[in-house]
C-alpha cells in the first residue's frame, strides 16, 4: 500500500498538453525536467545534491511563476505540493510511523533525476557522433545490385491431363447418365398388385402386397409405387380401397 503511494506520487500527472506547457513555464518538459534543470544548476554531482535546496528552488520558481501570473499546468502544482510535503517531512523530527520515510522518498527522487540525467547525457553524446548523412557519407548514387528473378514453373503430369480433361469436358455437351437405382417401377407395381389381389374378397392390408427385400430404399420405393398402383387400379374400378382415418392402415380388395 505504502509502496503504491510512493509510485503514484512519482508517476506525475500525465494529461499534459505539451504545447501549452511550453507557453506557460518555459521550455521544461514537465516538473521532473524542471527539477533536473534546477538540480544541474547546483553544479554538483547529482549524487551529492541537496534535495532540500532543490525543493526550495522548485517552490521559489513556482511562486515566481505565480507572481508573473503565468498559468501553471496542474502537474507542476501537484509536484510543488508533494515537494512541500517532502520538505516538511525532512525537516520535522523523525516520525517512525510515517512509511515510507521522507528520506526514502528523497532518495527515490534523486534516483529518478540521476536516470533522466544519464539519458539526457547519452542522447547528447549520440547526437554528437559522426553521423551518416551529416558527417560521413555513403555513396549517394550507387549502381545498385540487381536481382534477376528466374521463375521455375511448376506443374506435373496429373495436373496436365486433368486440365485437358476439363477442357474437353467443357467443350463437349455434357452427357448426364442417371445411375441405375434399385426401385420398383409403377408399371411393375401395377402388374404385381393386380396379380396378387386377383379375386380376393377379404380386405388385405397393402403391406402384404409388397415384395420382400432387405434394401430399405427399395422397400420405400415399393410402398410408394404400390400405393400409386392401388390408386390407379381403383380408378380403373378393378379394386376397392378402405382407410379408417389418415395414416391408418390401407386395405385393398378386389372390386
Amino acid at each position, binding site marked *: 500500500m505504502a509502496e503504491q503511494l510512493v509510485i503514484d506520487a512519482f508517476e506525475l500527472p500525465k494529461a499534459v498538453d505539451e504545447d501549452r506547457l511550453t507557453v506557460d513555464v518555459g521550455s521544461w518538459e514537465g516538473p521532473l525536467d524542471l527539477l533536473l534543470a534546477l538540480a544541474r544548476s547546483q553544479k554538483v554531482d547529482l549524487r551529492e545534491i541537496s534535495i532540500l535546496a532543490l525543493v526550495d528552488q522548485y517552490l521559489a520558481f513556482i511562486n515566481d511563476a505565480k507572481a508573473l501570473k503565468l498559468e501553471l499546468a496542474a502537474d507542476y502544482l501537484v509536484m510543488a505540493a508533494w515537494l512541500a510535503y517532502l520538505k516538511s517531512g525532512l525537516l520535522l523530527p523523525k516520525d517512525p510511523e510515517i512509511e515510507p520515510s521522507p528520506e526514502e522518498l528523497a532518495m527515490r527522487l534523486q534516483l529518478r533525476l540521476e536516470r533522466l540525467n544519464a539519458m539526457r547525457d547519452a542522447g547528447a553524446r549520440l547526437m554528437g557522433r559522426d553521423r551518416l548523412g551529416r558527417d560521413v*557519407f555513403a*555513396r*549517394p*548514387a550507387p*549502381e545498385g*545490385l*540487381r*536481382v*534477376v*528473378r*528466374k*521463375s*521455375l*514453373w*511448376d*506443374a*506435373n*503430369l496429373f*495436373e*496436365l*491431363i*486433368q*486440365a*485437358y*480433361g*476439363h*477442357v*474437353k*469436358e*467443357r*467443350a463437349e455437351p*455434357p*452427357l*448426364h447418365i442417371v445411375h441405375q437405382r434399385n426401385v420398383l417401377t409403377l408399371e411393375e407395381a401395377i402388374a404385381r398388385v393386380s396379380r396378387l389381389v386377383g379375386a380376393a374378397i377379404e380386405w388385405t392390408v397393402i403391406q402384404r402386397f409388397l415384395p420382400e427385400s432387405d434394401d430399405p430404399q427399395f422397400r420405400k420405393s415399393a410402398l410408394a409405387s404400390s400405393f400409386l398402383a392401388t390408386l390407379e387400379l381403383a380408378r380403373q374400378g378393378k379394386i376397392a380401397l378402405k382407410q379408417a382415418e389418415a395414416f391408418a392402415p390401407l386395405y385393398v380388395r378386389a372390386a
Partner: protein
Amino acid sequence: MTDQLPTLDPAADVTRAVEATLFAAAEPLSVQDIAAYVGPDIDVKAALATLTNLYASRGVNLVERGGKWHFQTASDLAHILRREREETRKLSRAGIETLAIIAYHEPVSRAEIEAIRGVQISKGTLDVLMEAGWVRPAGRRETPGRPLTFATTPAFLAHFGLETRRDLPGIDDLRAAGLLDPVDLAFEAMELPETGAEAEELESDDDHA
C-alpha cells in the same frame, strides 16, 4: 603498402579529400566541381591521376567521361552484381490448360487453342509457357492469315516424365480414370474465385477486345 599507413604527407591528404568528395557525390564531378569542395589551391588533377592509378586494378575504378569524374564498379565484375534468384511458381489454370491443348493437338494455332478451350487466352499465358521452355513456335500454317502454330519441346517431355507425346493418356483413358466425371465439373462451377480469375485475365487481354 603506403595507402595502409596513416597519412602524414599533405599530398596524401589532398588525395583523400578528392577521393571522399568523388565518393560522396551524386553526380560525376569536373575538376572545378571538386576544387569547390577541397579548396582552390589544391592540385586536383594530380590527385585524380594518383587515384586513377590507385584504383586501376581494383573492384572499383575512377573514370573520366566528358571531363567529369566518377567511381564505378569494374566492368569485368558486372556479372557478379546481378544475382539470379530461382523461384518456383505454380502455373495458372489458363497456363496448364493451354499447355495441355498444345500437347494433345500440336502443332496448334492460338485461334485453335481458344476454340478448344472455349475462352480466349492472354498473350502472357503463351509467354509463360515459352519462358518455362515447354512450348515453342512451330512455324506458320499455310492457311489464310498464316497463323503461327505452337508445339511442345523436349524439355516439356522431360519435365512431365514422358518418352513421347504418345504417352499422353487418351480421352477414353481420362474418362475411365474419372477425370472427365461430370461431378468434377459441378464442383468446379462452385469454385467461384477461380472463375473470377479467369474473367480478369480475359479483361486484361486487350488485343482480343
